[in-house]
């Protein structure tokens, strides 16, 4: 093949991958994932939430009440023994998920953060 053809092929590859990448990220807000015992049970686009709402997740032997507002999510109530998950407060980004150890429940932001890849000292129960 001629050099010109190669230039065109390369250009096409770059343009197509650029468009695909843009399509993947376009309009996508911060997505919270609610994970129960390793299984994603809810995906919530936090930036698309207009009015706040709550829902309960029934877990092995108890429940967690999850509160969702525009751009943020938290566990507002739980009948777990230590309530470390409630103490966490609001999650709106970052690489540290809300964890309820006793109920094996995790709430995290998918592709959440560019500030840190992980945080040291998350604590014994989180």
């Amino acid at each position, binding site marked *: 093949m001629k050099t010109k053809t190669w*230039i065109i*092929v390369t250009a096409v590859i770059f343009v197509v991958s650029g468009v695909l990448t843009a399509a993947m990220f376009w309009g996508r807000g911060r997505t919270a994932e609610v994970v129960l015992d390793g299984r994603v049970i809810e995906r919530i686009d936090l930036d698309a939430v207009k009015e706040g709402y709550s829902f309960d997740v029934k877990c092995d032997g108890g429940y967690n009440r999850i509160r969702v507002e525009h751009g943020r999510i938290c566990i507002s109530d739980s009948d777990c023994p*230590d309530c470390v998950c409630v103490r966490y407060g*609001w999650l709106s980004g970052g690489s540290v998920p809300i*964890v309820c*150890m006793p109920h094996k429940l995790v709430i995290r932001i998918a592709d959440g953060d560019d500030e840190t890849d992980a945080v040291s000292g998350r*604590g*014994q*129960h*989180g």
Partner: protein
Amino acid sequence: MFKKTVTLLFCLIMCGCAAREQTAEFFAMDTYMQIRYHSDKDLSDKLEDRVRQIEREISVTDTGSAVYKLNESGRAVFSHEGSALVDDAIGLCAKTEGAMDISVYPIVREWGFTTGEYHIPDDDVIARLLERTDYRLIKNDGDIVTVPDGMMIDLGCIGKGYTGDVLAEMLREEGVRSGILDLGGNIQTIGKKPDGSMWRVGIRSPLVTSGYDSLGVLMSSDEAVITSGGYERFFEENGKVYWHIIDPSTGYPAKSGIISATVIGGSGEVCDALSTALFVMGEERAADFWRDDRSFDMILVTDDGRVVITPSVKDRFTLNDGEYLLQVIDDEN
């Protein structure tokens, strides 16, 4: 030349596709573990099985574990791995002159930190338990470990750090060159990020009670970054805060002036132990310990608002929180 460049580019793109980011996540050792690594193989089950294997040996609550049996009867047969871990732990207790002591477990339990039923024990109860707190009385003879009557041990202060070492080694043997392990806030990094930049490890701010803002960010590669703080397990009574890190010399929560101790080094096991020990030692003793040892780096946060770091951390640590004053430890004795 141009063709070669394009072909090379093509290969690079293809290689990038083959090794993708994999995540293993599970609950183990009383915590949530998340391991991210770049590989074309899914190693999740293998990693989790290995964690469970270690947990089965060193758990203090699993009735089948060697540690449980030792605590129940004063004698237990350990596997070679478990026995080596006991030896390592005793060695680290000695190295820190008892600032970390694996036999402090009955006191931690008495305070309710293992069960969540917190209370302040009576002074005479603590005095009685302190008599049985001494790692030097633990004997390990050919994988048979014995402790005196009434003594119990917990390898929790090195368990997760050790597990991180084992998992990182497993991943490296599988050809993984980029990864980050988060074992309940114990961080271990493998290589650099796929884009060639260093991993960005946040250090949790010890004073924040809600949310998880980072005090600062450490650029990290091929090492363990482990933080001990009083913030996660604590209770308040009559306006006083009592946290789970017990000073083995007093039987009370360590009040050394340090509110968070981060240790950075090659071995997760050592960093895990030292983060607890330095928290108990306090700033001055910790600085002396570092000057004598030098095999690790540290970031200490003091209760008067200072962040004290070792000299080589300076160039790769960024303090985010303007409330704190950054100080570099004097290199000289």
